[in-house]
């Protein structure tokens, strides 16, 4: 049985790679139809296998399987392996990845229909699925890092998919650079793990973690740091890069330059959640450091509120959703900080569904608008695109967190869990998350009303061409709308509160981090939770957000302009995105350029070039003198030879 499961997991991971290779290298040969058929088929295989795994490891609660596939490198006692860890957490994550990936594959048939680089696109998204699955199933840090870098690479390729556009290449470049900073910390964290545990296997590291809790290291001269805090924070820097947390979030809005299906798959549903997954996976380490958890909570809460606010002033429909992703990732990270890993994972899953739905819905609108993404040019699309309208409405309600939609359960429980955690940052985090609910509802429904309600503002030619998108586009929307609406009710009890919860074998929560335990005592079933919602603050805040959005954009369309005039400094602050980009441009880029110019002019031009050119100049000077000896006349050479001979003879005889 175990043998079979191992083979199945190999098939699950490698099928998308195979599809990617076929579509990528034999793309011209198999054609457009062949490319999407083979990739969809292989991802469908992965999806079916992951469903089986969920059934086996989650529902049947089978024991985790940890096995090595391949010895990659052996350096004395250090073994670097490719190995898989099959358990509830990885299965759940895999099913989310495969589900969204499969739907995005199908959706792309419609969305990328007119694109000349069709095969390349399908090859990339399958490659992404492979990399993500490698990351998810990794049983050691090295493979985690492989998948981590792999998804980063594919993300780079896909943001720059329209490489003829300057903004796309710059966006991909920015994403890559910012992720590099995160990965630098991540790599240092892995190195610290290796140095202190002398192993990179999860199992070995977790087994030894508790014994090293009191260990300290000296980073700065004379300052002792807890080893666990250092490791956790370094690894979390990697998560900040990948999961776009403050201040490394700046790449995510830029990544909207990629095709919309990619935004749904990579920059909303799966890749950006890699950081959340990683922290959940490494919960036995994070549980040992309260400092790290506090930092995580503060960073997450900051992102959840303040990056959400930016979504209110954006006019690009994709960017609104992008900022909402940043905000929701902040929620998840904050939950991690409260040791409520299971709730964060739950929010990750529901978020993957409704955020993919919103992105694909936005894509559907963009198709109808002939690739105009500005919501100021939309309006009144409800009449033309009923399927898109209703599915996006479900997604928006889920995102805003209204019962009975899935987002309500995950977000509400997340806020309760955070408020129940006893860490010093609890107050700040709870306030941020609670206010964030209002902001979330506001920007979501602002975009929603401006797109689907209000009077149409597009020009006449566009309006006459408006129609519902083809079935390959709206079918994934409908399929995603179902879990967006229902997943919460179905999953909340088994995931979080059953006596044997789904993640019981995989997520470790220390006894003194009581958020989850307190949550469980207050929980009395999904329906009670929904009824209870009517007396909680977040619910009314969400309703208020929707109401404000309705008032400002539907009822009194003149009011936003008045607000902008009245609170001009706030508006400009939000429009400048708190100046992060400006700061980076001025200080990071500016100082790097100054340093580069210094190195170029002083080191390179003066020192290195001076030396190299000097050698050449001296050689030329000497040879211009010496060359006069070489006359080209044979008799001169003969004479020199004779004189030399004579000289030697004289030396021999009389010397």
């Amino acid at each position, binding site marked *: 049985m175990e043998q079979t499961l191992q083979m199945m997991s190999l098939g699950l991971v490698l099928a998308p790679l195979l599809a990617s290779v076929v579509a990528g290298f034999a793309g011209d040969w198999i054609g457009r139809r062949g490319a999407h058929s083979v990739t969809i088929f292989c991802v469908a295989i992965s999806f079916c296998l992951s469903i089986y795994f969920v059934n086996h490891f989650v529902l049947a609660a089978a024991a985790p399987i940890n096995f090595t596939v391949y010895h990659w490198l052996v350096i004395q006692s250090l073994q670097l392996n490719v190995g898989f860890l099959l358990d509830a957490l990885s299965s759940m994550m895999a099913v989310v990845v495969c589900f969204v990936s499969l739907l995005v594959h199908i959706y792309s048939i419609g969305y990328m229909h007119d694109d000349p680089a069709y095969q390349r696109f399908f090859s990339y998204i399958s490659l992404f699925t492979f990399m993500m699955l490698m990351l998810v199933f990794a049983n050691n840090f090295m493979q985690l890092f492989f998948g981590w870098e792999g998804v980063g690479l594919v993300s780079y390729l896909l943001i720059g998919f329209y490489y003829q556009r300057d903004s796309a290449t710059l966006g991909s470049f920015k994403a890559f650079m910012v992720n590099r900073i995160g990965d630098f910390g991540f790599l240092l964290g892995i190195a610290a793990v290796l140095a202190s545990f002398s192993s990179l296997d999860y199992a070995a590291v977790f087994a030894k973690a508790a014994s090293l809790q009191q260990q300290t290291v000296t980073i700065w001269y004379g300052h002792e740091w807890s080893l666990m805090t250092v490791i956790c924070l370094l690894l979390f820097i990697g998560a900040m890069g990948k999961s776009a947390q403050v201040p490394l979030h700046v790449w995510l809005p830029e990544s909207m330059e990629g095709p919309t299906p990619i935004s749904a798959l990579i920059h909303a549903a799966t890749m950006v959640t890699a950081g959340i997954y990683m922290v959940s996976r490494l919960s036995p380490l994070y549980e040992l450091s309260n400092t790290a958890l506090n930092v995580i909570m503060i960073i997450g809460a900051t992102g959840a509120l303040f990056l959400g606010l930016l979504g209110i002033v954006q006019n690009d429909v994709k960017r609104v959703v992008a900022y909402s992703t940043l905000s929701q990732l902040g929620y998840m990270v904050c939950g991690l900080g409260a040791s409520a890993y299971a709730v964060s994972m739950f929010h990750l899953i529901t978020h993957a569904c409704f955020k993919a739905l919103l992105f694909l819905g936005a894509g559907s609108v963009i198709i109808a608008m002939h690739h105009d993404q500005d919501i100021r040019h939309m309006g009144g699309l409800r009449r033309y695109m009923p399927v898109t309208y209703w599915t996006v409405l479900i997604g928006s309600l889920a995102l805003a967190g209204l019962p009975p939609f899935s987002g309500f359960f995950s977000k509400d429980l997340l806020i309760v869990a955070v408020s129940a955690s006893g860490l010093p940052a609890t107050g700040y985090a709870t306030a941020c998350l609670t206010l964030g609910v209002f902001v979330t509802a506001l920007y979501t429904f602002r975009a929603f009303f401006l797109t689907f309600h209000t009077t149409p503002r597009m020009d006449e030619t566009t309006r006459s061409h408006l129609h519902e998108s083809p079935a390959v586009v709206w079918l994934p929307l409908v399929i995603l709308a179902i879990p967006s609406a229902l997943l919460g009710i179905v999953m909340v009890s088994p995931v979080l509160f059953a006596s044997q919860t789904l993640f019981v074998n995989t997520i470790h929560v220390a006894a003194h981090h009581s958020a989850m335990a307190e949550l469980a005592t207050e929980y009395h079933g999904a329906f009670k939770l929904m009824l209870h919602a009517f007396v909680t603050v977040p619910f009314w805040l969400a309703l208020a957000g929707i109401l404000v959005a309705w008032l400002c954009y539907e009822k009194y369309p003149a009011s936003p302009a008045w607000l902008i005039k009245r609170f001009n400094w706030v508006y400009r602050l939000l429009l400048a995105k708190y100046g992060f980009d400006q700061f980076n441009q001025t200080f990071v880029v500016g100082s790097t350029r100054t340093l580069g110019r210094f190195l170029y002019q002083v080191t390179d031009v003066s020192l290195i070039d001076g030396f190299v050119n000097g050698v050449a100049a001296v050689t030329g000077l000497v040879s211009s003198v010496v060359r006069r000896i*070489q*006359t*080209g006349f044979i008799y001169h050479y003969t004479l020199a030879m*004779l004189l030399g001979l004579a000289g030697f003879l004289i030396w021999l005889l009389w010397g």
Partner: protein
Amino acid sequence: MVSLANYLMLSAVLFGISVAGIVINRRNIVIILMCIELLLLAVNTNFVAFASFWDDIQGQIFVLFVLTVAAAEAAIGLAILVVIFRQHHSIAIDELSQLKG
């Protein structure tokens, strides 16, 4: 009786004349080739003289080898000369200085 010293003197004089011919001559390559022949003959004279003096046949055998090689070298030299003439329509040494630095 001609003594060994006389032969060596003759050989030295021939050698000197031929070296002078090579170095001083500026006009043409044929003279250089002839001078080289003369150079070898001077050496041959030395060989024969010493062979006779020491009553050793080896010197004379060596002379035959030298003559053979000289003949071959002359043939190659003349061939090169012909090629040079075809290229430059001249065999004046002063004009052959492409290797000038």
